[in-house]
């Protein structure tokens, strides 16, 4: 039961803070063209299109309806999957299932975000709008709530995690800055990224002001416009389309409780925001499917979704790549650098480029390209197994794809 899916190509558009030269559909089209150019596949070979973005940022609901012709979905099956920050990862996983189910042979998975079209702040504040309205009704002081929610938005959640993580592992602000420096240096060598800073130093980052303690202005992710496209197909087709197919051997997208404190059904049961049960369970599910028993030894390359530097430490530990609280030390020793033992985020990561809806897919795409040996900032190490991770919602949703250059050993799980 089930078909083995493979990735044959991945493409990007150029990312910048304002891509005013294109509209949403044209932006999407750039990535699709790039992906099609990298393999022997034309738009006619595509059987199904799956797309996603965060609709609140552009102010357009289900934009794929009018983008049909531009994304090659005319008279074809089309599906829209969105899950906030993990949208890209969820789309990639949907494409995996579309192929694995045997219903479609070749699937084009695309995601984009053009944040300069609308207002990211308005889009994000409406995450909690419903809950805030109810809170006010229940007798909260507006001024205090405004301040609390200001810290509770994406940056604040990053700050909560950072504080708990720093308390657990005794890592310093310098450690956080070191992650940022590595990411920005990597981004400078990759053609499609947003923040390219080849000469930035730890000292320069520590000079920037705080946004939300302990995160400083120089440490956080930018808001970018950009898109990403990937082509999934069956094992048989993959060999026709490319010489270097990458097999998807495990996927998971586990959700934990909502972290915004809501008086209704959802609320914050997460006492420690850097515990991340959903990441641990996702890793367990996906590794089990892929037949990986020792992730720290078997995985050669990692792309994690880390808009804030402390998260990079946290994810690497929760995904079973480092022992708990040892990630900062590994960074100090250069294990995660481009030429290290376990290269992490050679693309520059979400820390350097964040087109929100596309970010999680870019992690999977970069991991695939590193295995193919076609990445913009290719690691010198030979890479056989890689993972692409995504994070979103209100610290509660996780997506994870495990990729390898060999199809999986016979999967025994399931029914």
């Amino acid at each position, binding site marked *: 039961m089930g078909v083995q899916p493979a990735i044959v190509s991945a493409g990007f558009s150029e990312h910048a803070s304002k891509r005013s*030269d294109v509209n949403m559909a044209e932006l999407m089209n750039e990535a699709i063209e790039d992906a099609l150019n990298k393999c022997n596949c034309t738009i006619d070979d595509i059987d199904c299109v799956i797309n996603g973005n965060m609709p609140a940022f552009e102010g357009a609901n289900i934009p794929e309806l009018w983008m049909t012709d531009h994304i090659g979905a005319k008279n074809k099956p089309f599906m829209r999957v969105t899950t906030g920050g993990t949208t890209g990862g969820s789309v990639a996983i949907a494409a995996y299932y579309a192929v694995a189910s045997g219903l479609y042979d070749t699937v084009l998975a695309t995601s984009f975000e053009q944040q300069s079209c609308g207002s990211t702040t*308005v889009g994000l504040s409406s995450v909690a709008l419903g809950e805030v309205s109810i809170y006010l009704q229940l007798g*909260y002081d507006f001024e205090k709530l405004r301040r609390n929610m200001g810290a509770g938005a994406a940056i604040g959640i990053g700050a909560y995690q950072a504080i708990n993580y720093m308390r657990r592992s005794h890592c310093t602000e310098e450690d956080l800055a070191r992650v940022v420096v590595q990411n920005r240096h990597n981004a400078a060598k990759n053609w499609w990224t947003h923040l390219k800073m080849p000469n930035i130093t730890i000292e320069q980052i520590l000079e*920037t002001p*705080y946004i*939300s303690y302990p995160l400083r202005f120089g440490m956080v992710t930018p808001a970018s416009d950009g898109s990403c496209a990937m082509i999934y197909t069956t094992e048989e087709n993959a060999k026709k389309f490319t010489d270097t197919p990458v097999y998807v051997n495990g996927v998971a997208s586990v959700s934990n409780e909502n972290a915004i*404190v809501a008086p209704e*059904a959802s609320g*914050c*049961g997460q006492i420690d925001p850097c515990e991340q049960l959903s990441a641990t369970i996702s890793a367990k599910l996906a590794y089990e499917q892929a037949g990986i028993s020792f992730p720290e030894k078997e995985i050669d390359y990692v792309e994690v979704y880390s808009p804030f530097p402390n998260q990079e430490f946290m994810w690497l530990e929760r995904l079973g790549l480092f022992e708990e609280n040892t990630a900062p030390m590994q960074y100090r020793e250069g294990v995660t650098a481009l030429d290290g033992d376990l290269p992490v985020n050679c693309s520059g990561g979400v820390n350097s480029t964040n087109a929100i809806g596309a970010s999680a897919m870019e992690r999977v795409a970069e991991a695939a390209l590193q295995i193919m040996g076609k990445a913009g900032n290719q690691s010198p190490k030979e890479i056989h197994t890689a993972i692409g991770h995504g994070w979103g919602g209100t610290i509660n949703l996780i997506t994870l794809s495990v990729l390898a250059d060999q199809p999986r050993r016979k999967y025994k799980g399931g029914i």
Partner: protein
Amino acid sequence: MVRLEYIKKQYTRTRRVHGNWYLASYQYKFNVKRINQCLEHLRKGELVGLKCRSCNTVSFPPRLICPKCLKMPDEWVHLRDTATVATFSGTYAQEAGDTEPRPYPVVAIRQDGSDTTWLANLPEGYDFFKVYVGMPLKVKWAEDKKGDFSDIEYYEPIEDPSIEMNKKEEAEK
């Protein structure tokens, strides 16, 4: 201060059309029947949480649904008026009267006896750099109670015995 070098390009191919983006107006609904029972207790200066009978999870503020069992909890339990800081952050905001942006503490608090956290307030002007994870707190009730969450005026920090104990241990060494 680092200057961020963004990529800048001359864009001439397109033209912008103005469009207003209304996220429309919504009238969100919520269940008052259930929360009112909690608010009635607050009016009396009592704290109650909802307990799920099948997994014994207690939520405060009371939650409608137990996510673990997918059931509606219906047992009200009384809670102590002490709490601990689960996690915290500081927003760097410049309020009226401040000369420079300064950090305002924002804390997620876990009421003792419950298993969930919520965002609540410390005394006005409390020093952000004194806050730490695990800090013990006590509810400061409002003077005239209205029967809503404003009855909990703020959480007052109380003496932390663990600090004394740590000091003793260090001295013994």
